C-alpha cells in the first residue's frame, strides 16, 4: 500500500476516491449515468478541455500562467480553416489538411514563442504578457473573421472529431497521446526538469547553469503548440471556427490544474493527477446534466468543488501538526 502510495502520490489516490464517490452518487441518483452512452459522451467532451489544460499545465509548473490558450487555439483553428477554404473548401484534398494543420501548429507555436520571449527577456509578469497576447489574438481573430463563423470543411475531418478506433473515440486517443507526451516531457527530459526548477526558484535555477531564458521561451512555445492541437480538434469536432469559441474554458483549465494538485506558485505538478481531475470535472458536469441541471450549474459546482478540495487539503495538512504538538 505504501509503495502504491509512493508510486501514485496521495494526490492521485484522493482524486480517484473523489471520482468513485461521484460515480456512485450519480449512479444512484441519475438512472442513465452508468450507461455506455454517457461514458461515450464524457469521452468525446473531455479531450477539448483536456488538451487546453495540458497547454496551461507547463506554464503553471514554471510559475507562470498562459491566459491566451483559448484564443491561440482559435487562431490556430482559423489558420487551418483558411488553408482548407482557399483550396476548395468542402472538396479540399487531404494534403491541404496536412498543410493547414502544419500551418496551425506553426501559428500556435509562434504565438507562444512571442509570449515566451517577452516573459524571458523583459521580465514582465506572465499573467500580464499572456493577457495582452489574449486581447491581441482575440482582436486579430475578430478582425479577420468579423466575428462570424467559418465553416464548410471536407468530410474526412468528421472521423477526427467523431470517429471511433477499436471503440475508443479518436479525440480521446489524441488526448491520451498528448498527455503521455507531456508526462514524458515533464518527468524524463532535461527540459521538463528545467521547467520544474524554474518554477521552484528561478534564480537558483539560473545559478545552477540552467538557461532559464531559453527554457521559458520553450515552455510557452510548447504551450502554444498544444493549443494548436486543441484548435485543430475543435475544427474537426464542431465543423466550424468561431473566435471566442471555448472562451469559458479558460479559467476551468486553471481550476483543473489546481484541482490536480499543481502548486499555484510553480515547481510542483504532475500530468496524471491533472488528468484524473479532468475526468472528475467532466463526470460531475455530465451527471448534473443528466439530473436536469444546465451547464451553468455545473460551472458553479466546479467552483464550489475546488473550494471543497482546497479546504480538505488544509484539513489534511492540520492533522499531522496536531499529533506532533
Amino acid at each position, binding site marked *: 500500500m505504501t509503495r502504491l502510495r509512493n508510486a501514485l502520490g496521495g494526490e492521485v489516490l484522493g482524486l480517484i476516491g473523489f471520482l468513485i464517490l461521484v460515480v456512485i452518487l450519480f449512479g444512484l441518483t441519475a438512472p442513465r449515468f452508468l450507461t455506455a452512452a454517457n461514458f461515450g459522451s464524457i469521452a468525446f467532451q473531455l479531450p477539448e478541455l483536456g488538451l487546453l489544460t495540458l497547454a496551461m499545465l507547463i506554464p503553471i509548473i514554471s510559475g507562470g500562467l498562459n491566459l491566451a490558450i483559448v484564443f491561440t487555439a482559435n487562431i490556430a483553428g482559423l489558420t487551418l480553416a483558411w488553408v482548407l477554404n482557399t483550396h476548395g473548401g468542402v472538396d479540399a484534398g487531404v494534403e491541404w489538411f496536412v498543410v493547414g494543420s502544419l500551418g496551425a501548429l506553426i501559428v500556435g507555436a509562434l504565438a507562444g514563442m512571442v509570449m515566451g520571449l517577452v516573459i524571458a527577456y523583459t521580465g514582465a509578469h506572465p*499573467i500580464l504578457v499572456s*493577457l495582452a497576447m489574449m486581447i491581441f489574438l482575440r482582436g486579430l481573430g475578430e478582425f479577420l473573421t468579423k466575428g462570424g463563423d467559418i465553416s464548410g470543411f471536407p468530410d474526412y475531418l468528421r472521423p477526427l472529431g467523431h470517429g471511433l478506433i477499436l471503440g475508443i473515440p479518436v479525440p480521446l486517443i489524441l488526448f491520451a497521446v498528448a498527455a503521455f507526451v507531456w508526462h514524458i516531457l515533464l518527468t524524463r527530459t532535461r527540459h521538463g526538469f528545467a521547467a520544474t526548477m524554474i518554477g521552484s526558484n528561478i534564480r537558483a535555477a539560473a545559478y545552477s547553469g540552467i538557461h532559464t531564458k531559453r527554457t521559458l521561451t520553450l515552455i510557452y512555445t510548447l504551450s502554444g503548440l498544444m493549443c494548436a492541437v486543441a484548435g485543430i480538434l475543435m475544427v474537426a469536432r464542431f465543423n466550424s471556427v468561431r473566435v471566442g469559441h471555448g472562451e469559458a474554458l479558460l479559467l476551468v483549465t486553471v481550476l483543473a490544474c489546481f484541482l490536480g494538485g499543481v502548486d499555484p506558485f510553480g515547481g510542483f505538478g504532475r500530468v496524471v493527477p491533472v488528468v484524473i481531475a479532468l475526468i472528475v470535472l467532466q463526470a460531475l458536469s455530465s451527471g448534473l446534466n443528466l439530473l436536469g441541471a444546465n451547464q451553468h450549474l455545473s460551472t458553479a459546482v466546479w467552483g464550489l468543488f475546488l473550494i471543497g478540495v482546497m479546504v480538505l487539503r488544509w484539513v489534511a495538512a492540520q492533522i499531522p501538526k496536531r499529533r506532533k504538538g
Partner: protein
Amino acid sequence: MRSFLRNYPTEAKLLAVLVVICAALSSASPSFLTLVNFTDLLNNNAVNVIWAVGLVVVLIAGGIDISFAVAASVVQYLCVFVFGWIGGGNWAIGFVVAGALGISLGLINAFLIHQFRIISIVVTIATFNAFFGLLMFFSSGRFLYNLPGWWSDRLILWEYETSGGTWAEIRLPVVVMVVAMFATWALIRHTTTGRQLYAFGDNPEGARRAGINIALMQAIAFGWMGLMAGIGGLMQSHITREVVPNALYGRELEVLAAVVLGGARLGGGRGSVLGCFLGVALIAVTQNGLNLMGVSPYAFKMVVGLTILIAISMSNLDFSAMTAPKRRDL
C-alpha cells in the same frame, strides 16, 4: 518632480507614453482634443476606474481577484430584488445596499483565503465560477429592465454647450469615480492601515511578525474590492439602464491589465491610484483614437493588445519581478 520620478517610475513612464499618444492623436484627428470627447471618455470609463482602484488595494496586499466583475453582476441582480422589496429606494439606500452586498461577497473571498490558507488566485477563480454559475442558473440569463426610476434616470451634474452646439456633460459615475479614487488614495497613503497593507503585501511573514493582524488585512483588501465592485456594478446599471447577468463577464481581465499596466505589482507591495487611472486612460485613449481615425472597430482589440504588450515590454526591463519570486506560505 524628481521624487515623483523616483517613487513612481512606472507611473511616470506611463504618463509620458500617454502624453505622446495624446499629442499624436490631437494632430491626427481634430475631434480628439475637444471638451466633448474628453468628457465622453470620462463618462465611459468611470466604472473601470472604480473597479481598478478596488483591485489595486488587493494587489498591494499581495493578492489577486478574478471574481470581482461577476460579483458586480451578482450585486446588480440582487439589488433589483432588494429595491423591489423595499419599494423603490433612493441613491443613499442604493449605495448602502450595493456596497454592503459587494463587501459581503468580498469577505467570502477573504475568509476562504485566510482561514484555509488557500492563495487568492485559486479562491477567486473558484468563486468566479461559483458566482457566475449560480447567477446564470438562478437568473436563467434573463435581462432585467424594471429598474427603479432613480437608478436608471440620467443624472447630469455639469454641462456646457460648446460652440459647435454639442453638449459636454459630466454624469454621476464620474463623480463617484473621483470619490472612489480619493477614498482609496486616503486609505492606502494616509492611514496606518494603508501602510500595513503595503507591508503585508511586500512581506506577509515579516508583517505578521511585526504584529500586523493578517486576517484584518485580507478582510480590508477584499472588502474594499467588494465595495468598489458593488458600487461599480450600481454605476454600470445606471449607465446601461438594464441588468444583464453576463454583461460584465470578462471585464475582470481588462481591468487587471490596466491596473498592472499602471505599476501595481502582481506579488504585492506596489501600486497607486494614479497608476490605475493612467492604466485605464491609456487603454481608453488608444481605443478612442482608433475610433476617431476611422479604424475598423474589429481591429480595436488587436491594437489595444499590442499596445499593452509593447508597453509592458518597455516598462518592465528590470528583472526584480522575475528574479525575486516570493513563496507566500501564509
